[in-house]
């Protein structure tokens, strides 16, 4: 599937994706865009070549003493190989929104495969949150035709990938495969005349990962959720 997207991930995001250094939620939304966008697919293979150069160049060639080479090789070559015909492209998953269905990119189809729980928010917005990691907030958003989101600011960065329909804000009109990046500084008011299905990933605010401070996390997340739900993006 190839769609001419007008808005793409930033060079840093593409690089992080190629290197594997991003949080799973961010990887998923970039993966979905890349599947739809031939230009970014080409960039990714170039970035992967560059990352592999860097990997081989910068890694010290010290032998890992714990590895018994020949034993490991023996155990590996006992396994059968995968032949070309075994590779399956899988079925094409769809998401049903009111009167029509939308074919999802592979990574998002996997995300949605456990079933989505839709919640109705103010302003004609429906939201189905999914948990992919503890660093991002991910959700499918469905904006009904004619819906408008109240003016709001983001905490952290937000990425929105348009899957079906379109939406617009002060800075542009976004169609399927468009990858819209907004930082904490951006203030915007998305609206959708024709209706729109998107997948959005939001950087989480401060999360404690060590010690007693972790006990605070549920409260922080709760406040965060309330804030994003009320703002409804």
């Amino acid at each position, binding site marked *: 599937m190839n769609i001419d997207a007008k808005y793409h991930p930033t060079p840093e995001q593409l690089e992080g994706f190629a290197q594997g250094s991003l949080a799973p939620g961010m*990887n998923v939304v970039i993966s979905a865009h890349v599947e739809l966008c031939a230009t970014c697919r080409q960039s990714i293979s170039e970035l*992967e070549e560059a990352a592999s150069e860097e*990997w081989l160049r910068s890694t010290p*060639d010290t032998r890992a003493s714990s590895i018994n080479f020949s034993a490991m090789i023996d155990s590996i*070559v006992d396994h059968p190989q*995968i032949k070309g015909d075994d590779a399956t492209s899988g079925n094409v998953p769809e998401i049903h929104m009111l009167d029509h269905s939308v074919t999802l990119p592979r990574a998002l189809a*996997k995300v949605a495969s456990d079933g989505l729980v839709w919640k109705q928010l103010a302003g004609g917005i429906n939201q189905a949150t999914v948990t992919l990691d503890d660093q991002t907030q991910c959700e499918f958003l469905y904006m009904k035709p004619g819906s408008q989101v109240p003016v709001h600011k983001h905490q952290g960065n937000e990425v929105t990938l348009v899957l079906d329909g379109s939406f617009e804000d002060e800075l542009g009109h976004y169609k399927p495969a468009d990858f819209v990046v907004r930082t904490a500084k951006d203030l915007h008011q998305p609206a959708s005349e024709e209706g729109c299905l998107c997948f959005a990933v939001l950087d989480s605010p401060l999360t404690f990962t060590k010690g007693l401070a972790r006990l605070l996390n549920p409260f922080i997340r709760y406040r965060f959720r309330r804030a994003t739900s009320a703002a409804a993006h």
Partner: protein
Amino acid sequence: MEDVVSGAGSMLMGSLAKSKSVKEPASAPRVSNDVSDSDEQLLIAVGNHQDRAAFNALFSRFSNKIYAMGMKLTRNEQLSHDLVQEAMLTVWQKAPLYDLDRGTAQSWIFTLTRNRCFDILRKMKRQPATVSADDIWPQEGDIDSQLVHEEMGTMEVEVSKIESFYGQLPAAQRAVVEQIYIHDRTHEEAAAVLEIPLGTLKSRLRLGVGKLRQMVGTEV
């Protein structure tokens, strides 16, 4: 080329010697392989005939690098050891899916190491198992059929032009393109029909399709 060679330095020669067991048709002109790095040939030898010596060579070249990537990301010796095991196992298992269209061997090995690492880290951090690395980066092998369909689509649009360009390809490349795109054979079937090694078929296909694309690109 028929003598038995051993030792790390001669592994490539060893694998090439073995691949000669499939006869090249005398009439087909030899297409020079444009691969200068031997990693690709090693990987293709592993994919074509489970070449143990070629796999040993890849293992000694990459295992330390993989281990170092594991230590950098997990800071855990056991997990890094597991990463070497899993990444090199994937190299072995998926080698038949590698071809030169996927870029260099080092990039291919890097991407599948990155993917195994992602899965190991996800388990370590107890993150939800909703999406695996192969869902996020499917290019290791399984998106192949999809890409072929896209190529077919492009070719149908330009079918009249393609036909005239097609005649300009060297005979050996034309034969391969014909098997794959006109007779719709798999790489393995086409290699058997043409009586050439799979690796040769793949590099001819890549060169032939590349040339066709170039010709279409300059015309459009």
